[in-house]
């Protein structure tokens, strides 16, 4: 009952029972692009970058939320999937104001890295140029909605690793945005512990340390993993 055998991109691999396709692929050295997935917090299947084909179904499945089964045949890199992924990144760049050259995360940004690795060299859609602001009320952390891709990694880290429940999503559709508490200035939040785990989890330059300048926002995401590991598996790293 313990393990399952499945085929990913033609390669026969074994996976632990109940793991997701993403975990099985990662464990076997196969890379699937992701954006909303973050080790240590639960998955929501929101960004749709990790979509894969599963033999026997015409539908696409998000690898981060779909569990493996015996004999499953998964394709992670068809032409169709690559095209959809490129389009997804294009849509994100058109949605808000991503000016990499002046961004704190330049060079350390998952969105930017994906654009490069997926071969998205230009955006064919109209830029929306929305007028989003910044929240600079916190003593040493800042939030720039213009860079946010609404992956909700910060929200999940804040609720499920820190347990503070400060970060939330408000609004719907293209008006969705990340708020602190019930849409109060971050600096006024009585729940925020200033732990900066939201910042550690953010894939883009939306959350940053005040004072960081262009390209300085480098984040060690494994810190989050250590905490979760310690808590769930009682393994402490010296």
């Amino acid at each position, binding site marked *: 009952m313990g393990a399952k055998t499945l085929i990913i991109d033609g390669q026969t691999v074994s996976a632990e029972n109940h793991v997701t396709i993403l975990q099985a692929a990662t464990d076997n050295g196969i890379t699937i692009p992701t954006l909303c997935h973050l080790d240590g917090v639960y998955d*929501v*299947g*929101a*960004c*749709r970058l990790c*979509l894969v084909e599963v033999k026997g179904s015409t539908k*696409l499945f*998000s690898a981060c*939320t*779909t569990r493996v089964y015996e004999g499953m045949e998964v394709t992670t890199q068809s*032409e*169709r999937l690559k*095209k*959809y992924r490129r*389009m*997804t990144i294009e*849509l*994100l760049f*058109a*949605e808000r104001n991503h000016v990499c050259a002046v961004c704190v995360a330049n060079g350390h940004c998952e969105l930017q890295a994906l654009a490069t690795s997926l071969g998205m060299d230009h955006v*064919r*859609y*109209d830029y*929306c140029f929305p007028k989003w602001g910044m929240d600079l009320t916190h003593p040493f952390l800042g939030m720039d909605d213009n860079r946010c*891709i*609404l992956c909700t990694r910060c929200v999940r880290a804040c609720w499920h690793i820190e347990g503070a429940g400060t970060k*939330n*999503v408000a*609004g*719907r*559709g*293209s*008006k*969705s945005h990340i708020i602190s508490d019930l849409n109060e200035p971050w600096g006024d939040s009585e729940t925020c512990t200033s732990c900066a785990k939201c910042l550690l989890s953010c894939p883009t330059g939306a959350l940053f340390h005040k004072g960081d300048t262009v390209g300085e926002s480098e984040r060690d995401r494994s810190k989050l993993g250590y905490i979760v590991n310690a808590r769930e598996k009682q393994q402490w790293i010296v």
Partner: protein
Amino acid sequence: MQLDDLQTIAEKHQASRKKFCLRTCMSAGCMSSQADVIKKNLESEVKTQGLEADVEVRRVGCMGFCGQGPLVGVDGHAQDGELFEHVKPEDAPAVVRSLTGGECALERGDPHHPFFAKQLRIVRANGGIIDPERIEDYIAAGGYVALHNALTELTPAQVIEQITRSGLRGRGGAGFPTGLKWSTVAKSPGAKKYIVCNGDEGDPGAFMDRSILESDPHLVLEGMAIAAHAVGADQGFLYVRAEYPLAISRLNLAIKQAKALGLLGGAIFESPFTFNIDIRIGAGAFVCGEETALMASVEGKRGTPRPRPPFPAESGLWGCPTLINNVETFANIAPILNRGADWYASLGTEKSKGTKVFALTGKIQNNGLIEVPMGIPLRQIVEEMGGGAPDGGSIKAVQTGGPSGGCIPAQHLDTPVDYESLVKLGSIMGSGGMVVMDDKTNMVEIAKFYMEFCMDESCGKCIPCRTGTVQMFRLLEKITARQATAADLAKLEELCDMVRATSLCGLGQTAPNPVLSTLRFFRHEYEELLQSDAHAAPPPATPA
């Protein structure tokens, strides 16, 4: 409460019937045109004319001919079933006088008109007949007998077998076989299970479920209770959108009445079966009609969908197996048990059984609510029942399935209305919206309208739907503004394909449908709007 008691209530109620009954529609539609004042005036007029012993003025639910409202129906008259249309409060004296032979110049509906004659009323059988605020009325019409029989004569497996054999499919849009869903929930392991009734009804222009809830609330409660017995649940939630205050207040009343009579709550029909129903009110998001978003909302969370599997039948509310069905689906349950699965299976087509309620609107003479047997040709609905386009116009297309559906062009009007035929034409049955379009309608504008709706209602969780609908809407705007080229049209088609294939939930997956279906049948209307130099370019390649 036992079967005898039900019968006693029914008989007592029959005995109290008077010679005449003035049925006054008190549904949201007619209420908005002072139906409450009309009823009050009728009552005082009956007193004035000294007819209290002979005339009952009854509050009833929707009669369906909403375009002609406010409506007052007359029973016990020489012309039984007479229907006064466009009644105003000051018409009360004339209406009451007509019972004793007086003149009444009010417009009258023709009960033999195809609009009524072609209907087959199962879930709407009591609509416009009984008083939705009196449980005795429902019981007198045979209510709660099906629940009694299910509890005392049928095992849960036998109930599910009946529903499966009836061929009933979900009326919430996708047409999933109801019996199969019930048996999955019944078989899912778990001590705690839930029943959810989806009354979110968010499609623009749709009011089928509202009318059922307002006109016959006990029918839905009874269906839910039978389902609870069948799958082993003891708690139900009825999710109704906040825009339906009348439905909510009638449901609250109905639940209270049913509890008082021992038909809900503990020891139902003096059996060990316990079932409670609580109402949950939706806050006006279309996406909360999607089952996983609805359940998140019931749990008190932000109403956004989550990936399936796991399906609610396996892991729904608070991780427990949950049966979720639409209002109209539940409304079919008691009639099926009362009249038998074979009777139900004999109605409709091979794969689509029973009836479907539609809200017929748009460029059509007679609009309102109709319940028709599955398989009826679309032409009969729009031309005979609906009377065709007004002002001598001709019908160009019929939109079904709302923002998830498509347009069926006039040349396909002979299509039978069933799940598979509509899908074959690129549309869907949907929850029952049916909008008729005449020759003056621009189909690109229609596609744009629905895209704007989806864009505004996208929950924003997943990228393809949140941003893809924005870009598709912009491209459609560009096309209608005559600023687009063939390349833009190709971009639109590519996005349609991508958003459909990659979105997380049904909202995004079906958002491109109105565009795809109008492109399929009215592509020239798009091309005519393209910039002239670009128009000469070769047609865009269809996306992979």
